[in-house]
């Protein structure tokens, strides 16, 4: 709860800072300090929850939030990722437009949404969390106001986002009609046999509404355009931390509430997973722009994260934590490299290894993690979510299909590595890579490898 309050206050401070000062680098430094502070508060909360073992999870806001140890731990990890994001891309955020303070304020408000989604126990908090998370994103997507692509991205995101909110709310309304409650614990009383058709259609609407938010196929149509059109630093945020936050909300709802109804929704989610994996990976192969390829790759990675929802067991919770962090860290690093290049196509990477060997090496590590090569975080992430599905044992065909699709993904990730190392050309950079950039990218790289070697560090629940 402290983190939620702190993040709100940070958002307000950033808005006032942008009124009082025009100094861009000053505002970036202030934001960095405040996000360090937020991360510190999260660690404090984790420390408190470790000391309070045996005590029931404290309930806040009239039992609408139950901040159990998982919620607090996940919030802490997401704050860490957000801090890493600001350290890596803070200067680039300042270059998007004039209103630098507001961008950081919106990011802080999105963090509030993520904390709410990590620990909600009432459908009202799910709805409010999703909206707090979405509305700032519509603005961030359109923050490059003179750019046609950015405007279009924000329009598409808004239209699809609010439509999916409507569907999500319809699902909540139907579940309310069936059970008379918004508490996710009360949904457990839904009977497995002779299930109320109202509840069943409510679950279906919820799958579609949340599927829109996590960009699962066939509800993924907005994703490539929005991620391609938005200013690159905000794409990095939207496709990683935000998506992970929504996934945890999805997981919480379907494991805590509908865990005993798996025979009703298992097949639907399995088909959605297969479609997501197929469309994400196959379409990514044909892309010319690396930014658009990363957008499709984020759809493909969402397909892997859906495995955690399919398999109702404890490993799935571990899997989603590792996947969220490993994927976020590697993708943020990848976007931090991409933003330094003038040309976002594959040809823009030609000959980068000769010009900036360190940058090319870091990119290679990030891409290997995304593809799931052993010794990187991405491998352990994929291993844990697939292990959860194997333990669950009902969707073996899907696990095999996912392995084939992971092999396909190696092709389009390695196309970038081939362009960097084996093709001749002059990769043009926007500006010189400073020592600070290299240091931060090196730390990100170390994190990726550390997660790959010791994933249990992330599971200290």
């Amino acid at each position, binding site marked *: 709860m402290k983190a939620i309050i702190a993040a709100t206050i940070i958002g307000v401070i950033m808005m006032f800072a942008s009124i009082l000062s025009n100094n861009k680098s000053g505002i970036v430094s202030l934001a960095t300090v405040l996000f360090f502070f937020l991360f510190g508060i999260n660690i404090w909360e984790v420390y408190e929850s470790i000391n309070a073992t045996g005590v029931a999870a404290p309930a806040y806001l009239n039992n609408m939030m139950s901040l159990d140890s998982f919620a607090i731990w996940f919030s802490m990890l997401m704050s860490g990722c957000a801090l890493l994001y600001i350290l890596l891309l803070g200067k680039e955020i300042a270059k998007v437009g004039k209103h630098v303070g507001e961008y950081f304020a919106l990011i802080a408000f999105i963090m509030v949404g993520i904390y709410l989604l990590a620990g909600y126990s009432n459908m009202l908090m799910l709805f*409010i969390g999703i909206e707090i998370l979405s*509305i700032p994103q519509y603005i961030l997507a359109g923050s490059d*106001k003179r750019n*046609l692509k950015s405007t279009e*991205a924000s*329009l598409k995101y808004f239209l699809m986002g609010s439509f999916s909110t409507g569907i999500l709310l*319809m699902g909540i*309304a*139907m579940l309310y009609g069936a059970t008379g409650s918004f508490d996710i614990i009360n949904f457990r009383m839904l009977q497995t046999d002779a299930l109320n058709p109202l509840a069943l259609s409510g679950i279906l609407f919820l799958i579609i509404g949340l599927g829109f938010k996590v960009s699962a196929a066939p509800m993924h149509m907005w994703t490539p355009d929005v991620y391609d059109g938005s200013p690159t630093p905000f794409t990095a945020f939207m496709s990683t931390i935000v998506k992970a936050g929504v996934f945890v909300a999805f997981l919480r709802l379907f494991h805590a509430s509908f865990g005993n109804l798996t025979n009703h929704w298992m097949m639907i989610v399995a088909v959605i997973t297969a479609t997501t994996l197929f469309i994400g990976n196959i379409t990514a192969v044909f892309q010319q722009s690396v930014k658009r390829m990363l957008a499709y790759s984020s759809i493909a990675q969402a397909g892997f994260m859906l495995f955690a929802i399919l398999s109702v067991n404890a490993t799935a919770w571990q899997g989603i934590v590792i996947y969220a962090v490993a994927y976020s860290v590697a993708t943020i690093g990848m976007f931090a490299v991409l933003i330094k290049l003038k040309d976002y196509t594959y040809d823009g990477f030609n000959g980068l290894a000769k010009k900036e060997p360190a940058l090319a090496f870091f990119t290679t590590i990030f891409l290997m993690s995304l593809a799931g090569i052993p010794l990187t975080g991405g491998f352990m992430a994929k291993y844990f979510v697939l292990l959860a599905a194997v333990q669950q044992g009902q969707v073996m065909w899907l696990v095999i299909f996912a392995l084939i699709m992971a092999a396909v993904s190696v092709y389009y990730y390695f196309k970038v590595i081939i362009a960097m190392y084996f093709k001749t050309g002059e990769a043009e950079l926007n500006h010189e890579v400073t020592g600070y950039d290299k240091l931060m990218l090196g730390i990100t790289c170390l994190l990726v490898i550390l997660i790959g070697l010791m994933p249990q560090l992330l599971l200290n629940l």
Partner: protein
Amino acid sequence: MNEISLNHYLFVSCALFFIGVYGFLTRRNLITMLMAIELILNSININFIVFNKFLFPDKLDGLFFTIFIITIAAAEAAVAIAIIINLYRNYKTIDVEETNTMKF
């Protein structure tokens, strides 16, 4: 005279929902699409209130949910109008068919 029952209300709400979905999918004018979204949200509001009144009258859960939906819909509409104005400045139109800079 029969009383107006739960089913009558649910019929209205369902009709409004699908009119909203139909309008959202067929109309190309952004303001009309925004109106369609509001129609969807309001049909859900009717749903919540009617379920509350007829099925679970002892608590006011559904009513309070409705108040939250109205508030957030207002916030969303404010952002939507800002986006539409920005779009009009850049494209000189509010027709969604014209906004096709990005293709698959």
